[in-house]
């Protein structure tokens, strides 16, 4: 298996899907001639040309809506939000039209689009560029959302998203773009709605997604080595659809759950997961469900403070120890 970056894995997925299906095209700001603001689409315009890799003006609402209209006639646009924060400029298009046109047409309209881009903080850029709106997307029936935590999942989930007949958001992470993982040469897909057990354990379960899943894995190793706690780490991969079964099986086995995410805590993804656990695994719990989320304030600019605001290994360990107490 080749060791490749998260960025390269996404690019491979896009490249392969463009070649597989003539209806797949990429659209977004700086995706073509500039090679992508984060270089995710580097080389794709040179390879596939103007028709398939398309630079847009800075008009998120227009190109999001255009993608929706085009998808109605069978084009399968993958639109890049330079930052997922910029999807807020296109809320009416993405959260009204992409999510509800199928429903309001009584099932007559399909919207096979992918909305992808980085959705993370921790980059010292302040509140307007640090949103993690997977909870907001998941709150809109009609939309799907995945948050790959590593290169293997990023490639497999991206391919699944592109082939999906519904609108799918793929939440990437700029802090992961340069990280490397092993990715097989041969074709594979990671299905939506299937969580991944990153590490097995006996004493408690950490449920996480995106980059936080990797931080949780790191914290789990420390907890095992320094505190003798055996931690199972469940990486959700997909937020909607959600693999409830894997979450519940793990919690039923360990009896304890710590939920870790970069969302702000109020109405975050983990608020829903916490509810599911108490409802469906209540009798198995040896402790209340605990959470580690971003500290509940707009994203702060100052680097050392932001590094504390979003979940980090230290905060996860602290949360785990509370959950074990």
């Amino acid at each position, binding site marked *: 298996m080749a060791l490749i970056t998260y960025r390269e894995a996404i690019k491979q997925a896009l490249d392969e899907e463009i070649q597989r299906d003539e209806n797949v095209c990429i659209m977004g700001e700086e995706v073509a001639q500039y090679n992508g603001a984060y270089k995710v689409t580097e080389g794709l315009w040179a390879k596939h040309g103007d028709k398939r890799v398309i630079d847009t003006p800075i008009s998120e609402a227009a*190109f999001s809506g255009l993608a929706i209209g085009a998808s109605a006639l*069978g084009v399968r646009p993958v639109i890049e939000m330079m930052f997922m924060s910029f999807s807020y400029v296109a809320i009416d298009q993405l959260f009204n039209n992409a999510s509800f046109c199928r429903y*309001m047409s009584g099932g007559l309209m399909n919207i096979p689009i992918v909305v992808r881009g980085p959705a993370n903080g921790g980059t010292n850029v302040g509140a307007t560029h640090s949103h993690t709106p997977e909870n907001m997307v998941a709150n809109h029936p009609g939309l799907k959302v995945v948050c790959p935590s590593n290169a293997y999942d990023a490639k497999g989930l991206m391919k699944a998203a592109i082939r999906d007949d519904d609108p799918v958001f793929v939440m990437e992470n700029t802090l992961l773009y340069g990280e490397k993982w092993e990715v097989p040469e041969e074709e594979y897909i990671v299905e939506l709605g299937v969580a991944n057990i990153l590490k097995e354990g006996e004493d408690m379960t950490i449920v996480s997604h995106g980059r936080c899943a990797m931080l949780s894995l790191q914290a789990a190793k420390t907890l095992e080595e320094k505190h003798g706690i055996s931690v199972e780490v469940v990486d959700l991969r997909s937020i909607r659809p959600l693999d409830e079964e894997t979450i519940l099986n793990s919690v039923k086995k360990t009896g304890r759950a710590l939920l870790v995410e970069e969302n702000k805590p109020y109405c975050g993804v983990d608020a829903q997961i916490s509810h599911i656990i108490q409802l469906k695994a209540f009798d198995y719990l040896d402790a209340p469900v605990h959470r580690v989320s971003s500290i509940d304030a707009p994203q702060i600019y100052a680097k050392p403070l932001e590094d504390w605001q979003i979940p980090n290994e230290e905060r996860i360990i602290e949360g785990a120890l509370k959950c074990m107490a």
Partner: protein
Amino acid sequence: MATPKKKSASKSTKSTDFAAAPINKALTKEEKIDLYRTIIGIRRFEERSLRAYNQGKIGGFLHLYIGQEAVAAGIVSLMEENDHIITAYRDHGHALAVGMSMNECMAEMYGKHTGCSKGKGGSMHFFAPDKNYWGGHGIVAGQTPLGAGLAFALKYKGLKGCALAFLGDGAVNQGSFMETLNLASLWNLPVIFVIENNGYSMGTSLKRSSAEENLAHRADGFDMEWEVCNGHDVYEVREVANRAMKRAREEMKPFLLEIRTYRYRGHSVADANHEKYRTKEEIEEYKRTKDPVNVIRQKLIDEGVMTEAEAKKIDQEKKDEAEASAKFADESPYAPRSEIQTDVYSEVDNDTEGKLKGTYFFND
């Protein structure tokens, strides 16, 4: 309003005898009568739906198209196989013009399972993709980038056709529309933006909402061709729109068409104040001189295409059809509760083998 200026690359007819324009001259007698049938059909359907609304049979909002019928009827009559249409929430006229049945439209407004969207969309959200009709959209100007997207798809797939994106005069001040004008022109998309300018964005007159009252002039800022015409004479609508549509199909170019029209009713039926922001005389004057139903009826009678009696007969047929649609809607059942969670995800609806993974709906 200032006198509309014309800026069109193609030949424009100076004459006001739009009936003599080739596109209208080419109409057969039956096609002409069909135009009348569509226009009077929309009128009678909406009058009946207003009664149903006042009886409490129709919920939500009811945005009536009465007064504007010749616009949708005229433009839809020009549509070819690969032409697509999308509009905003004042969508009944376009729906009937593309050939949706009164039954499915009325039932949708009643919220019934037999409605075009099974009662999931309501008055503002009619769809008929099989007739190239892509809604029916509730947020002002939100449909305009979708219209450009339909045109993008035509171009992408190498199909000769055009997209018609309708909007009201209130929608021109939305950012999404201005972004879309730029994109459509920048990418040479075969889309015609049709501003149905009825003079009022809800209760705010054009004068109080738009700095430049000649809305079509906005196209200049995007290097796009535009034209202005009147919307009460279906022949005029057809003559002008035909040139824009032909140009879009043949040259892959967008067009901004402003059509001056008028709505007799309020913004929606809930807008009971509409006689406060405009005068009764203004409404009556339009009805007397420019009513789209009367205009086409009189023209066809004068042309000898139909007689007064034939016109009356068609009118009665449409009244009966509208009445029957109200009965059909009334007698139709609501969708079962299980339908609340269908048509949300295509993959779920089509997962006949149950292979999909994970939970899609979170009810408990």
